[in-house]
């Protein structure tokens, strides 16, 4: 940095702007790019079969989703809605 630059007001770093913009588009691309694993439908079917032993299983009871969050972390979310007590009893 030359002496003249020293007296100029410091500009915000353009590199950090570039990084932020890239992180957003890359994260979007990676979410689109990664298809859901092929085993998910089979996993759902197996879970339903086990549930059917104990409760009245309905295909809509199980909701499975896979989310990619940070760098190396994927979250498998499993949501099971059990039928009302009086039905299952």
């Amino acid at each position: 940095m030359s002496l003249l630059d020293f007296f100029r007001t410091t500009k915000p770093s353009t590199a950090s702007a570039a990084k932020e913009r890239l992180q957003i588009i890359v994260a979007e691309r990676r979410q689109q790019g990664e298809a859901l694993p092929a085993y998910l439908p089979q996993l759902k079917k197996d879970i339903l079969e086990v549930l059917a032993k104990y409760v009245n299983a309905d295909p809509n009871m199980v909701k499975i989703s896979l989310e990619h969050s940070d760098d190396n972390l994927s979250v498998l979310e499993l949501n099971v809605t059990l039928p009302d007590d009086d039905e299952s009893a």
Partner: protein
Amino acid sequence: MARIIVVTSGKGGVGKTTSSAAIASGLALAGHKTAVIDFDIGLRNLDLILGCERRVVYDFVNVLNGEASLQQALIKDKRSENLFILPASQTRDKDALTMEGVQQVLSELDQLGFEFVICDSPAGIEHGAMMALYFADEAIITTNPEVSSVRDSDRILGILDAKSKRAEKGLEPVKQHLLITRYNPSRVDAGEMLSVDDILEILNIPLLGVIPESQSVLNASNKGVPVVFEEQADAGQAYQDAVARLVGEDKPMRYVKAEKKSLLKRIFGG
């Protein structure tokens, strides 16, 4: 088995051909029998960077069409007896690149005892680029510290993970290496350029090397001598380090920090 390595980037002008020539020459200098193939059909340039443009008789497309044998088309490098160049055609249609033809050439190179086959990809994601990456075991993603180049590199990583032979056959994925070219540490310090760490954080693949922005690269291509032969030049040394890492050596990164400026330069700039 020969290691088939594609040098790719998506974006044009980032240094794929310069890097292909430098890395192939570096591998040959280190004693590895290496072939380098120009996949940029219709726009051949690898021959010029390697200084063998006057010695091209037959090309890749002649071999694919059965008009010449692979041995007839391969040009032996003048500087290293371990390096052979398969030039692209200058005129013909890129549709000549068929999957069967490319596979045939690669397996012949393997039978001829080549240890490394470097595939210099054209820019873009069209047929020529897809053929260059399809059979690759490894990929060197050439990236400039600049937004459009980083984005295109990410796109190419997605294609390697989905459309390569290894992806289609469910084999071990293509091994990815990041090669950052035209890096300027002083501009990074000034907050004007993405740093190595920034790019690594975004692309998240292992780093093979960082080549500094250097006058020696243009000087080398002017002469038709791969920059890796410029032993005193920063870029030449950085390519040598990258080649050493490719064959498993552990080398510290050089030329990633800005040089200290003298007091006079600090005051008067420049």
